[in-house]
């Protein structure tokens, strides 16, 4: 699948992923408040886990649904669900006000991103 169809699949997947991220952010803001960027932490950790699972399933089972629709799910959905631009803004915002919280946010993010993707890979391998 190349050309315009790939762009459309990625665009649609990204739109769906971003809608889910928006739903998470609204839900988290209503329950946990806005003092700490829990929503971004959550979507980035979960999105990393999902891409680890999808990418590993794809190499194990090249005929699967996930491989045929990789543009939609991997390049689109996972990337749209996660966000680096907001992470950077939130990091800067915390740095200006609360150094300890900023450091905690950065460390927690790094750990959860890598743990997430490794866990996703492990789950896909154990199936």
């Amino acid at each position, binding site marked *: 699948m190349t050309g315009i169809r790939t762009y459309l699949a990625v665009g649609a997947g990204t739109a769906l992923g971003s809608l889910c*991220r*928006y739903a998470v952010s609204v839900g988290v803001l209503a329950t946990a408040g806005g003092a700490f960027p829990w929503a971004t932490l959550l979507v980035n950790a979960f999105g990393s886990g999902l891409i680890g699972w999808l990418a590993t399933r794809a190499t194990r089972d090249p005929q699967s649904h996930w491989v045929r629709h990789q543009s939609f799910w991997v390049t689109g959905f996972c990337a*749209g669900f996660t966000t680096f631009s907001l992470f950077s803004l939130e990091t800067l915002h915390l740095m200006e006000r609360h150094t300890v919280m900023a450091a905690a946010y950065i460390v927690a993010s790094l750990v959860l991103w890598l743990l997430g993707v490794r866990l996703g890979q492990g789950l896909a391998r154990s199936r």
Partner: protein
Amino acid sequence: MDHGLIGPALVALGAAVGGMARLGVTRLAARYAGQRFPWGTLAVNTSGAFAAGFALGHLGRDALSYSPLGLLLLGGVLGGYTTVSSLSLQTLTLWQAQHRLAAFSNLMGTLTLGALLAGLGGYLGASTT
């Protein structure tokens, strides 16, 4: 904060545009800079962080917090344009292929450049209001 269906529609619309722009940039990077290092994701994330910083500096926090413009620009376009999932996967892939230094540089480089460029974008955005 409640814009009914307009909020989600703006997020989806912006994200579709941002996602397709990301595909364009990563393809260009793969073509001209090769595929040994994920230059495309690095370019997308650092330029997206700069753009987010610029938008925030230029328009101000109040204009972007859960406003239609903020949902379109930050939640949609830039949220769809940038990615943490690819960054995580590519870092893990480099690490497991024994390219430890490249994995470390990718993650730390993205993080550092992202924060620096978001700050620079904020400064430039605020000085152009």
